[in-house]
């Protein structure tokens, strides 16, 4: 039921070009691609964006296996669209085509740009982009404790299974799940108090100092980056 390895964070592919560029530049590029995908309505522009994303994936060095696995999950949704949209109106097929291209362009770009960025880099980039520090701290905490609590949840679930819990469609099952979630929330709350006290003892004063990552951008890399941005502007012209 809860698959912990499922939410394990990516190990980023080393040595690719996208891995080298500064995280905040990458974050801005991701956001720009997302906005372009959302705003441009013409089929040509979307096809261009899709090719752009494929180029990004090529530059990222994300393993093809991982890529296909993610696309499979997305294509379930796309399939559902194709089953409903063409029957609802005349432009159904056109809309479904456009959406399919859009979804793939967006997902490929997100994978290329975000899978090559580690979480500490993203936090640092958000700081540099002047996001509120409370928000960055919140992201840090949630990310950190998702893994801890997923393990906690599967521990509770395991102990339920050992005591003979077998899910079926009755009130007892729902009570068991309710208590599981309640227990998880309760433990998380108690844990948060402990964590906060420990942080206070270590001198937490509300500000965060993140490790800083220096970017190692050589001149050819810089040129490539400029070309990437120019291409994105180009798609606005299509």
């Amino acid at each position, binding site marked *: 039921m*809860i698959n912990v390895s499922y939410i394990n964070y990516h190990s980023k592919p080393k040595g690719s070009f996208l891995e080298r560029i500064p995280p905040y530049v990458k974050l801005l590029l991701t*956001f720009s691609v997302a906005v372009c995908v959302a705003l441009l309505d013409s089929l040509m522009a979307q096809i261009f964006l899709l090719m752009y994303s494929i180029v990004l994936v090529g530059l990222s060095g994300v393993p093809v296996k991982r890529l296909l696995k993610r696309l499979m999950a997305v294509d379930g949704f796309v399939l559902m669209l194709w089953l409903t949209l063409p029957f609802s109106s005349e432009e159904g097929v056109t809309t479904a085509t456009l959406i399919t291209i859009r979804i793939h362009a967006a997902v490929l770009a997100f994978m290329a740009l975000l899978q090559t960025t580690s979480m500490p880099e993203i936090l640092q980039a958000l700081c540099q982009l002047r996001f509120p520090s409370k928000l960055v701290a919140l992201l840090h905490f949630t990310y950190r404790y998702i893994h801890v609590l997923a393990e906690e949840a599967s521990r509770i679930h395991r102990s339920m299974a050992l005591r003979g819990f077998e899910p079926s469609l009755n009130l007892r099952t729902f009570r068991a*799940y309710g208590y599981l979630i309640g227990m998880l*929330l309760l433990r998380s709350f108690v844990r948060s108090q402990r964590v*906060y006290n420990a942080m206070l003892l270590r001198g937490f004063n*509300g500000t965060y100092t993140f490790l800083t990552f220096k970017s190692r951008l050589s001149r050819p890399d810089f040129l490539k980056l400029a070309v990437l941005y120019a291409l994105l502007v180009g798609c606005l012209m299509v």
Partner: protein
Amino acid sequence: MHISEGVLSLYPLTIGAVGAVVGIAAGLKKMEIDEVPRVGIVSAALFVSSLIHINIGPASVHLLLNGIGGLLLGMKLFPAYLVALFLQVLLFQFGGLAVLGVNICTMAISGLVGGRLGRCVIISGKPSWLGGAVAGGIGVVLATLFTALALAFSGEVFLITAKLVLIAHIPVVILESLIGAFIASFIYKMMPSLLGVDEK
């Protein structure tokens, strides 16, 4: 429940983004820095809980828990959902960055309303399970309505899809209010302060 990137048109996307920014600003204002660990860890717990798959017959459903989130976090649900949905983009490529605003609004506003109503029920002296059921049920009902509305506003092509979304979530409403009832009564028994009510 979230809408994928590339589906909605500009109009709902803009409304969603503006609504989300307002909500997040209000939520951050209410959140002191010493509350950050609590909000972060509780929303991590909600994130993990919403990954639990519950089998109903042949189908497997996962919970939204936005109503329970509203009950526990109040206005802070907005920044909590920003973080949770961003992490979903990051970890699973679910949703997307441009639709982030819409998804935050559908989940957080409905959760907030559900949570507030649930808390009113509990404070007025009714049994705690009723409050949990109200929070859970209304959270899902409103979230589904908002999602369907966002789809319907994106063009007539999506009317059938919007209707399907509404119908498909009827069992989830029942399930969510049942489980919400058990969660609330459990927490009320163990640690009523978490629900913001004093021990009697």
